């Protein structure tokens, strides 16, 4: 039977629902005869003692989660999410480039690099996509760095902010939707789909959702 470490950060336990879900993982693993221990960022030297690592903290090459994932991978553990997936899915430029390459239908997207931020370019983007357009920082999650802009001034404002961290950004046509899907995939197989409802009167999910839950399983 396997010894599973579950990498979490403190924030994973602030929402009682998430805390319960984590506990469910633990009991399920234990029922099946595995050991399942939460591992926080100050216990990383314990990685090598385990057979497998399950990451529940936000997976992004910017964060400790990548270090944890790659360390475990190098040490021969089974890892979810594996470092390559983190590298791809944690970066919208990477993700959308692969979508385009493999002809996965996507919202019309262009990549804007820092050296190209000038009046003519901005105007040509508005001409191509219409107004507003959606600007995304590659590292966004939970809609945090996804903004809608309709004029040159706000385009410049938002891109200036996002360019501080990333030299390339994604710009998309605005295609509002009432919901989107979260699809859980493990080992190339779809495990579940979850419908995310966009709150009424808004065009994206917030990092913090108030009121009624906006998920439908």
């Amino acid at each position, binding site marked *: 039977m396997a010894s599973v470490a579950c990498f979490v950060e403190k924030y994973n336990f602030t929402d009682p629902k998430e805390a319960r879900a984590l506990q469910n993982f633990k009991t399920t693993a234990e029922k099946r005869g595995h050991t399942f221990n939460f591992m926080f960022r*100050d216990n990383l*030297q314990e990685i090598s003692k385990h057979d497998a690592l399950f990451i529940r903290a936000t997976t992004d*090459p910017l964060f*400790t989660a990548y270090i944890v994932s*790659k*360390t475990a991978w190098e040490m021969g553990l089974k890892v979810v999410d594996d470092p390559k997936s983190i590298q791809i899915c944690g970066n919208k430029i990477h993700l959308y480039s692969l979508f385009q390459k493999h002809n996965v239908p996507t919202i019309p997207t262009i990549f804007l690099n820092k050296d190209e931020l000038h009046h003519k370019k901005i105007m040509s983007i508005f001409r191509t996509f219409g107004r507003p357009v959606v600007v995304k920082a590659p590292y966004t999650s939970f809609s945090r760095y996804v903004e809608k802009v309709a004029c040159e001034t706000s385009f410049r404002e938002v891109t200036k902010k996002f360019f501080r961290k990333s030299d*390339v950004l994604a710009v998309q046509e605005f295609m509002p939707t009432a919901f989107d899907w979260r699809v859980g995939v493990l080992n190339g197989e779809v495990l579940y789909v979850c419908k995310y409802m966009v709150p009424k009167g808004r065009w994206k999910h917030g990092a913090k959702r108030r009121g009624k839950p906006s998920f439908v399983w």
Partner: protein
Amino acid sequence: MSVNFKYDCYNTDHSISGVKCVLVVSNIDLTTNLPTMKPSKFLESSIKDFTLNINNDYRYLKTGYYVSLHAEILDNAVIPKSENILDAHRTPILLLRASKAGIPTFPYLVTSSVKQIISEIGFPVVVFAVNPFSYDGFKIAKNRSALYRAMKSLGMNYKFDICAQPFKSEIISFKSIFGKCELEGDVERISKKVYDVFKIPLCKLHVQLLKEKAYLCGLQPLENAELSPRDLQVLSEEISQLSKNGELLVG
């Protein structure tokens, strides 16, 4: 290792000295007879050539990273690979992969706990940033308050972990150009080995020398201004040399 060209060369002008289709993408002005392109232009192109990405700064999310990524999306062989860029610039992964490849390193600790560093490493200790934004990488702490200050600044207010290593002797920092450096002996050997593992053409390495043995401690990007005319010459020569020998293609 023999080399197979998987991809067609669209532009025959790219053939030089037996190595076909090497495109140098660089934000640095180089004197090379190889076809060269600015990163912003390459990012808009779909040129399917062997891509040699020369940049003073390869950090994640910077242009140097995106050039390698773009080359990979185009299925081009590229130096350096985006994965190696990512790993080499995160000290714990740098050290882990380096030590697996036989490069001497000291034991390290990834943490945001001052207490843990004091109990497991003690003083003096050298602290490297783990956050990927940091440019100049490390601080040496000889006591608790210096350690708190180092953790606060390198951890961006404790938001990120840091990577602590024992400080046993002076830290030597030097430029590494395709694994070549101006120092000799064990330091030179380490520089070459780090290049062999990660293939980062341009970077600054930090090592500690203990009884003439070098231990790898960290890697960071160079500032453009740090590149002397002599470095640029070495860089250009290396590029020409590597493409002549075909070594470029052994990624």
